[in-house]
């Protein structure tokens, strides 16, 4: 399972990087969303899939899955949500103000060199 997940994570990263490199602003934002999915799954996979019970105390269960990666991912999810929201609004405002979402045009002009 870990090997398969590794391949899937690689695929997610590939798709994310491809989107981030494109010229359209919204594709870049979508790319960052995929990138965070890839990262979360990576943390989970690296924690290992051993253990048979969710990490909640219950009578007679001792074989919990590793709780630490889950705690880390939970933090990461919330942070990436915050960042995605900011990106999204920023993209929206940039488009509104500059009237373009072409990343090639969104570069400094020579005055600012």
């Amino acid at each position, binding site marked *: 399972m870990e090997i398969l997940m590794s391949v899937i*994570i690689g*695929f997610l990263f*590939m798709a994310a990087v*491809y989107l981030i490199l494109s010229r359209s602003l919204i594709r870049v934002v979508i790319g960052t969303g995929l990138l965070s999915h890839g990262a979360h799954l990576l943390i989970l996979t690296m924690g290992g899939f051993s253990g048979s019970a969710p990490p909640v*105390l219950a009578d007679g269960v*001792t074989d919990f899955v*590793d*709780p630490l990666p889950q705690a880390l991912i939970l933090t990461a999810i*919330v942070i990436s949500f915050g960042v995605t929201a900011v990106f999204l609004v920023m993209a929206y405002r940039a488009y509104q*103000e500059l009237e373009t979402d072409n990343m090639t045009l969104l570069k400094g002009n020579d005055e600012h060199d």
Partner: protein
Amino acid sequence: MISVLLLFAPVAAALLVPLLARRLRGIHTGWFVLAVPVLLFVYYLGFLPQVKDGGVHIGELSWIPSYGISLTSYIDGLSLLFSLLITGIGSLVVLYSIFYLDKTKERLGNFYVYLLMFMTAMLGVVQSDNMIALYGFWELTSISSFLLIGYWYTRDRSRFGALKSMMITVFGGLMMLGGFILLYIMGGTFSVRELISMAPELAEHSLFIWALVLVLLGAFTKSAQFPFYIWLPDAMEAPTPVSAYLHSATMVKAGLYLVARFTPIFAASEIWVWLVTSIGVLTLFWGSFFAVKQTDLKGILAFSTVSQLGLIMSLLGAAAAAFHVEGATETMFKYAGFAAIFHLVNHAAFKGSLFMVAGIIDHETGTRDIRKLGGLMALMPVTFTLALIGSLSMAGLPPFGGFLSKEMFLTGMLSLGELDLFTPASWGTVLLVAAWIASVFTFIYSFYFVFRTFTGKHKPDHLPKAAHEAPPGMLVSPAVLGLIVVAIFFIPNMIGDWIVKPAVVAVQPFMYGSPADVDVHVAAWHGHVTPELMMTIGIVIAGLVLYWLLPKWQGLYRAFPEHLTLNKLYDSSMVLAEGGMNRLSRSYMNGLIRSYLIYMFAGIVIIVLGSMIVKDAFAISFEGTAPIGPVEIGLLAVLVASVVTTLIARKRLTAILALGAAGYVVALLFVIFKAPDLALTQLVIETVSVALYLLAFYHLPKMSRHDEKRKFRVGNAIIAAGVGLMMALLAMSAASQKALPSISQFYKDTVYSEAGGGNIVNVILVDYRGFDTLFEIAVLSIAAIGILGMIKLRLTRKGDQHEKQ
């Protein structure tokens, strides 16, 4: 201790200069400044009797004791000679500048502050025994020289000259620092004295040769040796007192001082001997040859300085060669060291006076162009006399000091001719011939300088001012120097005993124990015809003939193409360095975020995959992995499908929904991987995210590919595939080789007993690792405030026509 503090006396006095310059406008500031070098000169004169008998004075002031760095004042023959030159000529130059610089038109405060700063720096260079302190003062001379050359900073040429000299001398200074550090590594001390005492061991060290070359680079750049002499002619944009002081008598001799001071350490190396000698002779020849080409009086003097510095340098090389000769004290090798120091004194005297003469001519006629000058002899008789004394001494004619040093120089060169210790024996002869030819050219430019200016036809129409004799005050300083030049001829042995011999002992401690051992007696006429005298007669004859024919062959200089000169090389290398760097940074910093992302991704991939290959870290192990069920396969298939959809979607809505689908699949993966809290959060967050995307839907731009060419997309795909491959391999290798077990057992064991909770993930979040959560809350708050700010605050740009509410 007192002597160390006195090093800083000029700088301390400089603090008062601006005050005096502002308060007492009626009196020329130079009069106040004059007291400083005069008093110091008198103070240093007091050391003469002590040093004459081979005594030394050591003053020390701890600076950074933990690193063995201290400020020292080590006064032996060599540093006393230099200190006397610095303060003596310094006094004369200050006196001269009082009459040269106008007190109403010039910013005298600046001038004297820089000059006093320079004086401290120079005294520090020659008296420092500690190499780090020596380097500090060394750079201070570069800086104050930079300030003085650029004194008239509104002129382009001044700024150019100042920058050029700064670049070259600071380059050399840094090289020298490297050499000093290597010496420290070898010897374990910064003290030059202690290094000299361990010279034989140092010579065996593998770093020795590097230290040697680096120290020499410092000396050659400062003393304007080939090919670094190019800054000196451009430094002539400085006021003439500065040229006279810094660029003839003192600063340019700092390199000579350095070579002389380190000769006891490096003389053991043949490379030192040959480098110093041949670069010296080459500079001597080159400078004298091109001096005749110049049309500016100060230009001639600048090239002549370069040439004379080369002469002294070559003599120092010959003095080092004496180290390799058996019983050098008995042979003619003993003359070289003496001649070097003797000529150093001589040159400081006559070149200082000549610069002042050039300044007087400039001051009284308004031009320094030799083509416009002529026939000033009758109008400026005193100046003419002084110029004649200086020039004839420079040419090496009796009855002036230059004659004696030239004789001894030829002796030194003849001794090199005998030197067949190393490499081809004929090499010494080549040097001798080159030195002889250079002496002929020296003769020519000396005559050229004085007779083109003072004899011939007077051309009053070409002169900006009507020429007349300078005020007496201006003539005092060159007159004193002229007197010294003559005096040296008549009492050479007195100068020799009091000043030169103690200095020679410092340069050649391997030959002499005390000044009394230096068995050199200078005589203008040895009572019989020596080979040196024959050579001098040859120089005079050849020089007179060539000077006579000068108009015939001066056109020869035009044959040298201008674009092949070293100046052009310097200029174009500067242009190339600046323009090249600019082009280089522009070529990769193109302002496109995509480019920077590509650099980053490519860099990461190369570094990670590269180090994995180097460390052979690839691993794939199916051992202990969890089994793969049909549900997982199904979910992953959906995930891949939705990701592919986002990739190829042409509509915004499709892409957003596909992204949402991917998010939900991730939530379901959390479910099957037994992470209930994650699944819950992921579901909620994904829902909110999709809602947010949809909320902004109408405002978001359409999904456009912006003419993304096929090539463009293929490039992106390659980078993306590289990153994906790297992550997959990394994840596989990491999952397959676990070094340590997880620390989570502790959480599992203590979650109830220590924290009183049942949900391990939640307890970790708020109890074991509560700080993460605190700042995660902070992140969310900042995001919320940021979004609010972006939407609410609309500072319109300047000249924005389309304000939107």
